[in-house]
């Protein structure tokens, strides 16, 4: 299956392990990702906070270029997913805005008719490729591994359409298809604080602490995420959270694509698993490396 791939800025930078794991698993899954040519930043939450029309216009530039290929756009980043989708919704719902976006694009020699569907990589992998196919490709089983799915906010809200905003199950089913045990916990769609980690560190750290605590108390060995910002907050800040709240979290935070890669039997190094801030624990390593014969 072929898609137009929109990586987004973080996936090429602080989330480069996400990028590497996607590149590693795509061929095995039969996923053809053709990168959108000369894409620009979606604008994220930050641009929207200072300029609205500009934010919509730069976001629409990507969609306008994508329209030439007439395929679904798929992005691995929850923030890009929300922003690009929101641009589509506003473009359809507010004629005045549509007119202005159209004029701005025209100045750059582009046009957009509003017909491109934007999807998250999780949706594409779970619903287009499907759980059965993923399970059938698995060379390793993750028996004994307890995984807490962390959805965060922007994949299921405001208008995802592929899962429930409060009780999503897409990732739960994926974890089970991979042969691991899915840990259910209340905070799976809670907010990690996102960019507040930069501006209001204390508040964001507290949100993450509660989240880690909930996952830990429910017996999770690791957390699996689908968003660069969530991963960064939970992984890179975990040490600081421990120091601040006198907790002893040692919970690796993986991307869902890394977990898929492990079951496909790919080398851990190709999946960027050596480059997590919170390193894989010994029992996890044993499951990841030893399950080869499973």
């Amino acid at each position: 299956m072929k898609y137009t791939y929109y990586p987004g800025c973080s996936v090429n930078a602080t989330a480069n392990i996400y990028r590497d794991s996607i590149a590693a698993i795509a061929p095995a899954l039969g996923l053809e990702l053709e990168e959108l040519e000369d894409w620009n930043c979606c604008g994220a939450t930050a641009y929207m906070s200072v300029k609205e029309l500009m934010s919509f216009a730069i976001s629409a530039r990507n969609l306008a270029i994508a329209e030439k290929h007439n395929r679904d756009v798929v992005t691995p980043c929850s923030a890009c997913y929300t922003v690009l989708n929101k641009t589509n919704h506003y473009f359809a719902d507010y004629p005045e805005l549509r007119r202005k976006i159209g004029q701005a694009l025209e100045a750059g020699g582009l046009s957009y008719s509003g017909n491109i569907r934007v999807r998250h990589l999780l949706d594409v992998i779970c619903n287009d490729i499907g759980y059965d196919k993923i399970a059938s490709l698995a060379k390793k089983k993750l028996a004994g591994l307890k995984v807490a799915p962390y959805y965060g906010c922007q994949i299921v809200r405001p208008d995802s359409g592929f899962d429930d905003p409060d009780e999503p199950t897409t990732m739960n089913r994926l974890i089970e298809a991979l042969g691991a045990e899915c840990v259910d916990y209340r905070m799976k769609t809670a907010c990690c604080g996102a960019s507040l980690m930069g501006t209001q560190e204390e508040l964001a750290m507290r949100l993450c602490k509660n989240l880690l605590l909930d996952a830990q108390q429910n017996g999770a060995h690791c957390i699996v995420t689908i968003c660069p910002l969530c991963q960064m907050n939970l992984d890179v800040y975990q040490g600081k959270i421990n120091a601040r709240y006198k907790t002893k979290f040692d919970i690796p935070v993986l991307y869902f694509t890394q977990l898929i890669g492990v079951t496909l039997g790919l080398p851990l190094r190709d999946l960027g698993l050596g480059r997590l801030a919170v390193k894989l624990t010994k029992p996890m390593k044993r499951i990841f490396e030893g399950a080869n014969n499973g």
Partner: protein
Amino acid sequence: MLDRDIVAEYKLDHDFLSEIYALPGGREIKKCIQCGTCSSSCPLSYVMDHGPRKMFSLIRAGFREEVLSSNTIWFCSSCYTCAVRCPKDIKITDVMYALKRLAVKEGKTKGKKAVVLSRNFARMVNTYGRNHETELMARYILEADLLHALKFVPQGWKLLVNRRLPLFPHRMKNMDQLKKILRKVDELGEI
């Protein structure tokens, strides 16, 4: 702090509501029934000057100053929990964005670090077409948080040793096209 005495009518800003109505989705706040679902769902309402429910009530009554200088709009993390639960389908998060922009426009942003972050983010995009996270962090720390610059060091170090902190920006190629689009938006004026 809100004046708990009865506020004289003449002190309220009656144009404020029409300004909010003019924003895309702004008119929706008319439908708010003050049920409080938003505030009770919000993970950050406990530190906000006013929760989202109260914000709408303040807007409708014309408390311009209280609304625009509140910490509420900058503590909103855009998690959309309130928006999906609102029984009246009000796009609460988007109204918060609109209030952010209005506060920026009116210069009511003293000491608001989120503004520094947003402004520098926009600058990255306008320069490279993409966000250069490393430079954004550096600029943000220099401008907003130099006193606490050290607190970012351990996290930055973790990213660096794990080869997750690129030193050079990814640039898009056709900056010329992006600039033409941005210039046109300037001409058209914000919404």
